[in-house]
């Protein structure tokens, strides 16, 4: 154990997937769009398809941004936990390897924030 303690100390992680009632956490970072202060934290079903996740979860989250309407998820470059990633839209999050607490990073060609200013 890494903590200094008077006895053998062990602890359980508070955010195990089992604690989320059949759902999972997914985070999404859209670089150069700092109107949104940080990555989004989503609660999603592991069985949801990647395509549905993009249209039904991500798009509503970013809709306030002027560049959201023009965003084509099919043309986007993705990272999954900082590694290059090519999601299959018809397959589920789980099947795509988007596990609990994964970080997705989304870059769409030509979309670098308002006036290219990263916001």
């Amino acid at each position: 154990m890494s903590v200094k303690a008077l006895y053998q100390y062990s602890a359980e992680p508070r955010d195990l997937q089992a604690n989320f009632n059949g759902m999972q956490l997914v985070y999404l970072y859209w670089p150069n769009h700092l109107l949104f202060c940080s990555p989004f934290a989503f609660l999603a079903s592991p069985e949801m398809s990647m395509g549905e996740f993009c249209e039904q979860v991500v798009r509503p989250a970013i809709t306030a941004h002027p560049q959201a309407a023009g965003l084509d998820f099919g043309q986007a470059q993705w990272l999954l936990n900082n590694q290059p990633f090519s999601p299959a839209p018809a397959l589920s999050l789980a099947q795509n390897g988007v596990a609990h607490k994964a970080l997705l990073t989304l870059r769409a060609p030509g979309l670098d924030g308002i006036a290219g200013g990263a916001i």
Partner: protein
Amino acid sequence: MATKNKKLSLKDKYQYLTRDMAWEPSYQKKEDIFPYERFEGIKITDWDKWEDPFRLTMDAYWKYQAEKEKKLYAIFDAFAQNNGHQNISDARYVNALKLFLTGVSPLEYGAFQGYAKVGRHFSGAGARVACQMQSIDELRHVQTQLHAMSHYNKHFNGLHDFAHMHDRVWFLSVPKSFFDDARSAGPFEFLTAISFSFEYVLTNLLFVPFMSGAAYNGDMATVTFGFSAQSDEARHMTLGLEVIKFILEQHEDNVPIVQHWIDKWFWRGYRLLSLVSMMMDYMLPNKVMSWKDAWEVYYEQNGGALFKDLERYGIRPPKYQDVANDGKNHISHQLWSTFYQYSHATNFHTWLPSAAEMDWLSEQYPDTFDKYYRPRFEHWQKMQDKGERFYNNTLPQLCQVCQVPTLFTEHGDPTQLSLRTLEHEGERYHFCSDGCCDIFKYEPEKYIQSWLPVHQIYQGNCEGADVETVVSKYYHINIGQDNFDYVGSPDHQRWQAIKGNRPLGGDDDSRDAA
């Protein structure tokens, strides 16, 4: 031969009534009476080397504190009787008090409990006395802060349930987790974290912004609290200095342990103070100074001199201080942007800086404000003018350690977030920075248990599945009163009525706050 009764000298009185009240145990083992002294690895060879940072006997302590209280509460009474809340610069200022009452006053309570505990567990009587007095000081600070702010609670929203909110509201887990981390550590780490790092190194970055902010904005109650607390704080600072010197001089094995704690608590303190940075730059109608200037004076200059002094013990300045020093140009703007967009879920209002305020920010931040931050405020102003005031309707990712949303940017590139991630025993964790990631790596068992507000909402533990229900039922934030933009809020309307600018709609009773 009769002996004349002589009055004790102050030095003897102190010795007899504090140190000499202690004794060497003869029928219990010292390690059993003081079980927490060794487990952190700190070695104390000689408690007699402890130099009492201040020498007060309890009767002197009570006498001085009672005198201060009599004066202080007379001023609180006068403030209330004369409707002192009407003399502040602008009701926007009250939002700084809402942040203070929910974010800082509960930490004073945490300090009261923390010092009471360590005041029992050191085997050195001098250290116990100092900690016990600090414990009472901290409880006094809770009480005097509450009394300073209670009058505002009669006239403005958001102040009505501070203790409940501290334990539950998303952004208040930042200060709460800071103090819980310190109090769940051993006694020597607690003193390094709070007495040294917080009450000595970083104290001016909390105290000056709020107390000077009060002075510049006509808040007589808080100003008077500040003056009244200053002599307490002076004692706390001397304790912090004595603690660090004592531990480092006792044994060379203590040096690397203390260095690690200095690194950890500098970083945790810096992250906590980001809330204060936005208060200074965005929430005070009359500005005191910029966060950037405050950091330069109180950390880079004063802290720099301090760490120079500590070099002879083998202590170096805290890790990542270069990141913090660069961060002074950015964090206030990043924090205000965050609270602006999440203001539907806060107990205080937010608003966009005026043109004049943005010009002040340009002046204070010549290298960063116009380039990186003005554009977003101008964009949000356009949205607001169209009747589409921006609120972020999705929950943010939080840092596993400091629990702030992962909103900070890379040192060297303010357009990119400084996200960090790792896997530990099959689970993934996310951090705002190397500083927080390092803290996790050193003691993962502590932080895998972090009670992250966003995750707790998603687990269904916060009395609602949607933000609005959580905000009202779980947080006790009154929707349409405490939250949303300052402009048009009941506080704003009340202020306009107070200043005779525009009468409130409805009957005259609506002038008085419920």
